[in-house]
Each structure stands twice: as structure tokens, then as C-alpha cells.
């Protein structure tokens, strides 16, 4: 079944086959989004399952067609992530925890320096404010276009672009600070 209007109609009718396809299509991108936000694989798995439970309840009310599905799914994911952050103490994820990311990510051992830089960048992204972090994860990890990111986060396209630009500057500062460079 293709991700088209018939698929959306099947989802709204709560057909099992359609939801199985939905899970197969979005479980990995959602898991990457949640894992990228905090680095806890167990929590990311729970949040992914919660996201699908919420989608069963809310998809019948979704407005728009098939092109709205991906932003809608990530909008639900964003709300689940916000709920999680309200429960947790907000704070900077120390670079020590960035090793967990490297442990779960396959990569050649010969490029240790690149892996270290990745870990530092991932930790730096997690230290950004939630809205900017979401923009970076959806843009560079889930590879959503800017228009869909704006739709998912409920913000204007200009705001998303501005967050990308400011976030890039902020990451530069963090990485320079951590590397000890002025």
C-alpha cells in the first residue's frame, strides 16, 4: 500500500494493515529523533511506542492529505518529547554521556577522531533549547525538508530557518569552548 490518500483513508478507518505499514514506515525515524534528543535507548523505545498509541487516537482527526502525514507524525513526537522534558530536570548533557551514542552507532574504529567530533556535536545539539534541537534533529537526522519541519513544529518557515542559523552559531561556540579554542 503506497502512502497516498487511500492509505490516509485506511488509517482514519483504523484498519490494521494500514497501521502496520505506518509503524514500519515511521518507527526508525521516530526512534532516531527520540534517541538523538536524549541518548537513552530504552526511553527512546518507550517514547516511540507511546507515539504510535497517540497516533491511533489522533490520526482520524488529521486534516489534509498524504503530504501532511509526516509532519503530523513528527508533531505528535514533538509533543511527547515536550512532555518528557517537563518531567525531567533540564540540563546540559555532559560530554561523558556522548560515549553512549558512539557505542550504539556503527562506525569504523579507524576514524576515532571523526567519531569523537560526532559525539561532541551530538552532545552539543542536546544542549540546545528544545525548539532549536528539534529543528536540527528533524533536518539533519530525519532529513525532513524545511517546510515539513515548520508544519511539524507549528512554526513559520522563517522561524525555522532562523533557528537553524542561530543554532549553527551556538553549536560553533559550544564546540570551540569544548575544544579549548577562543
Amino acid at each position: 500500500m503506497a502512502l497516498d490518500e487511500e492509505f490516509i483513508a485506511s488509517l482514519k478507518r483504523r484498519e490494521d494493515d494500514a497501521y502496520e505499514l505506518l509503524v514500519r514506515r515511521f518507527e526508525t525515524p521516530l526512534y532516531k529523533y527520540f534517541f538523538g534528543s536524549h541518548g537513552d535507548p530504552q526511553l527512546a523505545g518507550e517514547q516511540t511506542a507511546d507515539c504510535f498509541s497517540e497516533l491511533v487516537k489522533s490520526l482520524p482527526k488529521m486534516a489534509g492529505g498524504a503530504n501532511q502525514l509526516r509532519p503530523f507524525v513528527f508533531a505528535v513526537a514533538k509533543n511527547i518529547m515536550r512532555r518528557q522534558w517537563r518531567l525531567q530536570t533540564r540540563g546540559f548533557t555532559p560530554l561523558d554521556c556522548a560515549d553512549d551514542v558512539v557505542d550504539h552507532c556503527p562506525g569504523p574504529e579507524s576514524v576515532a577522531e571523526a567519531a569523537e567530533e560526532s559525539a561532541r556535536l551530538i552532545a552539543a545539539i542536546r544542549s540546545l533549547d528544545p525548539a532549536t534541537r528539534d529543528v536540527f534533529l528533524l533536518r539533519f537526522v530525519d532529513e525532513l525538508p524545511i517546510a515539513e519541519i515548520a508544519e511539524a513544529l507549528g512554526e513559520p518557515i522563517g522561524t525555522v530557518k532562523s533557528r537553524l542559523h542561530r543554532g549553527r552559531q551556538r553549536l560553533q561556540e559550544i564546540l570551540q569552548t569544548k575544544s579549548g579554542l577562543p
Partner: protein
Amino acid sequence: MIDPQEPLSDEQIEEMLAPLRAVKLPDHAHAVNMAAVRRALSLRARPVWWQRTVAVPVPLAIAAIVLLACTTVALLRPLGNPPRPGADGARPTQADGIAIGRATNAGGELAADASWSMSRSYIGSLVNAHAFEITDSKEKRDAL
């Protein structure tokens, strides 16, 4: 290596986030996600409480209906049956109306139309279903 003097480009960010893009779903995650979906679908399929039906044995249902009907009749019956003047439950007659009129008119003469007006008001309080025996009021007056 990141050049501190140059802002991060999209390509640099993408390259550095490649490990995160390569993250794989844990083996059990698909089963967990499908279980969550099935649980949510089964909850949505359950109707709200006022739409649900309950199974009641037929004899019990019949007994409840009969009991309800009897209770309803018993409650409504006094409203349709005002108290009757005769202890034996006999149909009210003109004589009864005259007697009532006489009892309430202790001081004065029994006027020619007093009994009739009293009877008329008494008639007004009766249910239509009850018959009223109208006798010749003149004969009654003469007899008195």
C-alpha cells in the same frame, strides 16, 4: 576537523551526525510498537458506556418488565381514581350530590338549584370514565 574560524556548514553537520543517522532500531522494538498500536486500536473500538449492551437472561428481563408495568399502574391509579363518596364504591348519584349540598349548607333553606349547582361542581371533580346517575331532582325535592 572543525575549523573554528568558519561557521559549520550543512555538509559538516551532516557528516558529523552520520552516526546518529545510522542508528538502528532495537530488535524487539517493532513488536513493542505493534503491541502498542493493537492495544490502542482495541481501546478505540470499545464504545462509550451509554452505547454498550449488557447480556440479561430472558426470564429476568420478562420479570423486570412485568414488575415495571405493575409498579407504573399502581403509581398512576390513585391519580385517575379520586376518592368516592360511597363506602361500597357505588356509582355517585344525584342523591349523593344533594346530600353533600345539604351538609355544607347547614344554615339556609335548600334552594331549588342549590343541590344542582353542588352536584354540578361535584360532577366537575369526577373522572370522565365514571357514570353519573342523574335522577329527577324535582322528585327528590318533593320526597324530602
